[in-house]
């Protein structure tokens, strides 16, 4: 690097340029010296750049949710849509635990404790899987209530109006349901459970109500309440609400009324769905990392995976109160 001071961007590095090594080796050979823009490794820089795009991505989703929710004329309460706050709080706890375990995996790897790093990483993977499992259970509870993000699966109607009455009639008129209703009607009273017998009477009543020529507008609200009642305040999520006909006879799958429920379902599944995809990607990264020897050389990789995982945790920290408690 003899006297090639012109190749070095800053004059104060003359001391380096007139260094003591490789004299005579590279005459006329320009050695470029680059100054790193940011004092961090490439991988970490890329991860942080990616995370800053993720901040905007989730801010757009969360911002749209907040704006849609507070701009809506009616928004369902968490128990109207069968959300369970304790389950959500437990899932928050699971993610916080997994954030701690990935940090501990990083610390163990930095200290070259390979087996310990692997154990913590495996714990993180299991906690993340537990989160996804609970999320899947919650999704299936929504699906069983006919809450889907879109037609044709969604059975949610916004209000108990004539369109709703027509939908109930259409469902009751399906050949398979007619068949089922016939067997239900012909079942002797003592073969039914006590709540089933009472539910059969209520079902017979609402079948008359939806087809009655002198139907009053309020009747359809009664029908909707019988099919799937909106749980009242303070009953504690899923637990204490009155059983609707859809719960007692799961094969009925009649249309239900949740005012504001369709927009709620769209935002809920979009937000939690994208979050769950991020969790799944994180789990994939952990599974790949587990195939390596997690020693000090891998600390950078673990740190980057951890940064991503903490971000996923961060998103859930905001999702939980916004979706479950607001």
């Amino acid at each position, binding site marked *: 690097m003899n006297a090639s001071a012109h190749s070095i961007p800053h004059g104060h590095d003359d001391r380096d340029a007139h260094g003591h090594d490789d004299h005579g080796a590279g005459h006329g050979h320009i050695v470029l010296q680059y100054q790193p823009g940011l004092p961090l490794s490439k991988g970490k820089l890329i991860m942080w750049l990616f995370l*800053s795009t993720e*901040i905007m991505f989730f801010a757009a989703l969360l911002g749209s949710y907040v704006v849609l929710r507070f701009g809506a004329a009616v928004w369902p309460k968490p128990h109207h849509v069968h959300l369970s706050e304790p389950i959500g709080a437990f899932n928050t706890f699971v993610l*916080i635990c997994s954030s*701690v375990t990935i940090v501990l995996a990083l610390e163990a790897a930095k200290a070259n404790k390979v087996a310990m790093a692997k154990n913590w990483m495996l714990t993180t993977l299991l906690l993340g899987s537990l989160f996804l499992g609970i999320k899947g259970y919650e999704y299936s509870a929504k699906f069983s209530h006919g809450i889907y993000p879109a037609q044709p699966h969604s059975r949610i109607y916004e209000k*108990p109006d004539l369109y709703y009455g027509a939908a109930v009639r259409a469902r009751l008129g399906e050949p398979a349901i007619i068949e089922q209703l016939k067997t239900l009607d012909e079942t002797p009273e003592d073969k039914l459970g006590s709540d089933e017998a009472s539910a059969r009477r209520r079902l017979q009543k609402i079948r008359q109500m939806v087809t009655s020529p002198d139907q009053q507008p309020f009747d359809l609200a009664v029908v909707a309440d019988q099919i799937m009642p*909106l749980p009242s305040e303070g009953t504690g999520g899923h637990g204490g609400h009155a059983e609707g006909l859809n719960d007692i006879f799961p094969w009925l799958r009649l249309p239900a009324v949740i*005012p504001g429920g369709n927009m709620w379902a769209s935002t809920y599944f979009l937000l939690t769905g994208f979050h769950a995809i991020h969790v799944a990607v994180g789990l994939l990264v952990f599974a790949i990392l587990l195939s390596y020897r997690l020693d000090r050389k891998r600390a950078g990789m673990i740190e980057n995976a951890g940064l991503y995982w*903490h971000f996923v945790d961060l998103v859930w920290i905001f999702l939980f109160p916004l979706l*479950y*408690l607001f």
Partner: protein
Amino acid sequence: MSEHSSPADSHGPITRVGAPSSPTAAHDHDGGHGHHDDHADGHESHGGIGQYLAVFAALCVLTTMSFLTYSSVWPWRDQPHVGWAFMMAVSCTKAMLVVLFFMHVLWEANWKYVLTIPAAMMAIFLALMLVPDVGLRNRMVAQERVLHMARPGDLRLMEQAAEMQVLADPAAH
């Protein structure tokens, strides 16, 4: 000298110009680390298992606090705005704890502001720009949309139907 330190330096062409380039300094880079974590190695001020566990405990306490707004202990159940403001404050505190300690941002150099502040500003503006179109969409609504959209009256209708118990236990009669 850059030729000498290059095998140890995984960045290839990138060499720290300002660094003292004596042979001992070049040797310092041979620490076995594949990346520049000089500030992480130089002084082990950050981290520590005890600190992480303290942050974990704080996060658990904060989660319980926001969950309290759901329980019957919460005194402002009739004023949801109090609970919302409280929960957002708790969430922001939790987010700061995770970012500062778990993501090590507290100990990072000033590049952290370059990456996070513009993204945060963009995020805030993005949400704000949705307000006129989406947030205020129900201020002025066409009559045909009113026919089909849920309105507070529909919720009251459902609650009324539940209270009146029109079909309550006909077996009793």
